[in-house]
């Protein structure tokens, strides 16, 4: 089944995320692909995440294809103008990369090339519409294209964004622009998330809740205080700070597994997107803790 068919199947969808290396040593990335490709429905490859120059997302997606997995190409608008974005989409399609996550991209200034120019010629909504145009065999200049392309288009949303209203308008613009699935920013407060889902259910899109692995109380506190759109409830921070030294990761796996199980049990959303940043090797443990032991199709 394609990822699109899995989304439409009504089954609880699981995606995870891998990060390309800083350089040409692909061993660890390939190891993560090998470890996860049969345990999740699709694997995102980040696109110079946090504006740090790395091996490209396209290269990571090709590696997933070569190993028999299903990639989701993360594509930001930060580093490429509309000519380069369209060309990469055409290339991706010809190599069997059919799922695109459209993102604005982090600011250049948070990354490691602080003097680089941020392009942002398109924004995430315009990128979604650009893909729509390619699917109609037209480029953004209105010229005809040979061959056909069809993608499964995704976008992101931040359910805990503050203020929420401007974010909701953007979410709806993404829906109007053809987004078929959304992977959310990390969510930790399931009651808040359920309220977001009450709203999101009004739209014909699939929502995968973002699950970011917490590894310590310190990390949880840092995220809730500093990362835009992330709220970690105090009881989770307390739960993490209550464990013996060295057991934070285990507790984090337990929390993530518990949350995934609850989301699935209560059919709160359509699936989850697991981001175990720098801890990709424990994703199978998280899925096991969630009771999701089965291999995917």
């Amino acid at each position: 089944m394609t990822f699109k068919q899995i989304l439409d199947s009504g089954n609880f969808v699981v995606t995870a995320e891998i990060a390309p290396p800083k350089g040409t040593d692909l061993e660890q990335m390939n190891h993560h692909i090998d470890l996860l490709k049969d345990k999740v429905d699709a694997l995102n490859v980040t696109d110079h995440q946090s504006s740090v120059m790395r091996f490209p997302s396209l290269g990571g997606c090709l590696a997933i294809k070569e190993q028999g997995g299903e990639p989701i190409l993360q594509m930001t608008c930060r580093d490429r103008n509309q000519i380069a974005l369209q060309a990469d989409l055409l290339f991706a399609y010809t190599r069997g990369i059919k799922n695109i996550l459209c993102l604005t991209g982090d600011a250049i200034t948070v990354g490691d090339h602080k003097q680089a120019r941020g392009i942002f010629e398109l924004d995430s909504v315009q990128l979604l519409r650009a893909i729509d145009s390619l699917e109609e065999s037209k480029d953004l200049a209105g010229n005809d294209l040979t061959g056909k392309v069809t993608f499964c288009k995704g976008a992101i949303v931040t359910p805990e964004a503050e203020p929420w209203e401007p974010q909701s308008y953007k979410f709806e613009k993404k829906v109007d622009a053809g987004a078929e699935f959304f992977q959310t920013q990390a969510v930790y407060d399931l009651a808040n998330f359920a309220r977001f889902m009450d709203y999101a259910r009004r739209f014909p899109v699939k929502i995968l809740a973002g699950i970011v692995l917490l590894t310590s109380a310190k990390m949880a506190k840092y995220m809730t205080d500093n990362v835009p759109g992330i709220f970690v409830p105090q009881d989770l921070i307390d739960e993490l700070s209550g464990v013996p030294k060295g057991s934070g990761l285990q507790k984090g796996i337990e929390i993530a597994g518990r949350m995934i199980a609850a989301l699935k049990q209560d059919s709160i959303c359509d699936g989850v997107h697991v981001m175990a940043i720098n801890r990709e090797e424990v994703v199978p443990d998280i899925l096991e803790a969630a009771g999701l032991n089965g291999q995917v199709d």
Partner: protein
Amino acid sequence: MKTITRQKPYEEILQQLEFCNRVFIVGCGTCATVLQTGGIEQVLELKEKLQESGFLVTGWTVIPTACDEMTAASAGEHEAAIQGANGILTLACALGAQRLNFYLDKPVLPGLDTLFIGLEEQPGCFMEACDQCGQCILGYTAGICPVTACHKGLLNGPCGGTNKGKCEVDSDRDCAFTLIYNRLKEQDRLDLMKHYHPPRNAQVSPRPRVKILDQKGIEQWV
């Protein structure tokens, strides 16, 4: 409206002056004076510093508005001192520096970096208000320009970095789309938040941009 400038590091000024030993200094009485980057005080400070560094300062002046055509006459008043110099250091913006190039046959060296066109929001606080993109959308955005007020120049709403109404790059800066949302709400025009903005045309007027207004007042674009 003011051209916002910042004085270059002294080391960089010295590097530009490596080829010469006699300097004439030009300040500007308009923007650079208000910004305290190229008024009389800064010109005199730089004169002292250059003298301490061993330069002969043949003279100095602060031209009322260095970017306008009166600069020719102002430069003429100091002809002897300018002729005595082998480098002209200017504490005017880049427009002033280029205007001086029209009239002087000596190298004109910028002592300032030109940053942006600023609107004085409050006394002493200049904000970048316009990117001169040639496709004004202020009518849809409650008069707040997201091209300049959003760090990424987004058109269709906030990015995921927006945080409690502030910007991810600087928690002291407002998120443009929170400002736009709030003002549209006050104006009872929130429907405009739904308006889809297509990609901007980056070639509305291809660079270098030139406009000619002929004597009959007829516009020509080159």
